[in-house]
């Protein structure tokens, strides 16, 4: 017996407390969405498909569309800018790594509200050059997801000897393009997948920047709708939570699947 391990009863109590901490707010929200006068019914859930209410919920669908575009652009920034940079730093400029790591982890320690103060004038310029489309928010989100995406990808880089693998590929006649696409990327797949999913979760959860920069995304739309229909907002909140939950499970599974597929 491990003497340091808590007893069975202690473990049970901790489990229940932590579980309650997560479950009670969600359960309350769920019960709230079922309220119908003094009784319970599914009327608020059914309202989502009600054409009469469509105009009231329109901001949410627009916001959701914007958010999904944002998610795609942010993931592209992670996969095509951050990941190649990390590979380059690892293989060619290992001495830059401490500085690079510091820089990339920095956003986690800067509150979004502070970030916005700096971003506002930059976005005035971006608005002039690229328009005020919601997708331009991806530049800001590309920064806020850096710490999370970096950790996920770095874990994969540390697990595979990509230096030897890329040297072997080079000696076999592969140019740098083939090295990255055919050798490094497949072996970093779990990290790249996790980084992408975490980025999506961050994009769908961030409120401060989107709100203060006046961009309509899922989260801001939720607040708008809440002012007119609190029940609908609660329903969408639950759906968003469920989506994030599924994402986390997918990340967990992706990490466990063994890398292994024939090149053909």
């Amino acid at each position, binding site marked *: 017996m491990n003497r340091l391990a808590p007893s069975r009863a202690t473990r049970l109590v901790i489990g229940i407390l932590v579980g309650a901490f997560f479950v009670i707010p969600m359960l309350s929200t769920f019960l709230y969405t079922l309220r119908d006068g003094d009784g319970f019914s599914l009327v608020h859930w059914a309202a989502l498909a009600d054409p009469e209410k469509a105009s009231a919920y329109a901001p949410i669908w627009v916001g959701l569309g914007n958010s999904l575009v944002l998610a795609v652009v942010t993931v592209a920034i992670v996969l095509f800018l951050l990941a190649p940079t990390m590979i380059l730093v690892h293989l060619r400029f290992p001495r830059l790594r401490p500085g690079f790591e510091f820089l990339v982890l920095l956003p986690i320690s800067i509150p979004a509200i502070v970030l916005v103060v700096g971003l506002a004038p930059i976005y005035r310029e971006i608005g002039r050059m690229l328009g005020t489309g919601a997708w331009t928010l991806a530049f800001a989100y590309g920064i806020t997801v850096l710490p999370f995406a970096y950790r996920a990808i770095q874990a994969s880089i540390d697990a595979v000897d990509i230096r*030897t693998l890329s040297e072997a590929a080079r*000696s076999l006649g592969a140019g740098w393009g083939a090295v990255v696409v055919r050798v490094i990327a497949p072996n970093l*797949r779990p990290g790249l997948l996790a980084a992408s999913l975490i980025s999506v979760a961050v994009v769908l959860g961030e409120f401060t920047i989107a709100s203060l920069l006046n961009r309509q995304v899922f989260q801001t739309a939720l607040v708008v709708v809440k002012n007119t229909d609190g029940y609908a907002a609660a329903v969408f909140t639950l759906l968003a939570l469920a989506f994030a939950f599924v994402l986390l499970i997918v990340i967990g599974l992706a990490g466990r699947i063994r890398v292994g597929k*024939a090149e053909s």
Partner: protein
Amino acid sequence: MTSPIPVRPLPRTSENSLLADAGSGTRVEFRGIVKDYGATRVLHGLDLDIAPGEFVSLLGPSGCGKTTALRVLAGLEQATDGVVMLGGTDVSAVPTNKRDIGMVFQSYSLFPHLRVIDNTAFGLLRRKVAKPEAVRRSHDALALVGLDHLADRFPHQLSGGQQQRVALARALVTEPRVLLLDEPLSALDAKVRVQLRDEIRRIQLRLGITTVFVTHDQEEALAVSDRIAVMNAGRIEQIGTPEELYLHPATPGVAAFVGLSSLVSGVAEGSSVRVWGEVLPLAGDAMTGDVEVFVRPENVRLVAADGVEATVLESTFLGSFRRTLVRTADGTHVRVQHPASERVEFDDRVRIAIDPEPVSVRPTA
């Protein structure tokens, strides 16, 4: 990336396409290779000429520059100065992927996400060989290392020795101009190491491919090489056949590193040296004064009378012979190789004598 490496057309004289290439080797030349890492110079003007089809080992302690030399030849490191020639052409500015080399690494380097057959086909596909042709030639290469039956496995399903065999097949399948081996055996256990070592040599002789083998294991180098370049501190101390290095080491460093030696004090007298009352010819340059003499265990024998008195410290049975460590009256430790029938035990008093073979010496520090 636009001009693929040419794949030389081969006469199909045997069933195994790889073997049809036997006899075509490429000359490899290092000309005054200097390599600096910051302020540290790791290669001091390396000159080495390797004949077509020759198996040359770079032997030396870790940090002697042997791996750096190999990596410069592979194009994985850029030389600070000097020229690398492959087949008479200066390839110093040619990137690794265009040098047409095959390389086996110390650490396992198979692509973990690809099956064995896809690993071996990788180099061929990069050279724009059609897929069916690439697969057929990959099977040939795997057959050469005796692993064709594992073609559908993934690397993590193979033992270390099998992985290095596949790595060898992968390096050879493109019929490269030169085969580079960077301590490919050091991660393997002793028995597999000897097997694979002999197999590499057998395959190398059959294919006739110029091979550069980096190792810190002198036994490995002695067993497989046509010639060995013994390196120390970024320079080649001596280059020669295994026999030359073993019997006529040019420097004390080579004598100490190649084969087993005991250090015995003696007095040099020009072209000979006096040890234990015997006069032995000097292998290197003439010198005088107090010296330390490198004495091979097989040149020392147990004698019944005369000789030097010594006490047995340990004696190891090695099959056909015994190797016994003794200590003389002045505290010198000497290894003696003698017939297994001459049994000695710890603390036995024995007498030893030295054969009049040429020896190398270094001045007493």
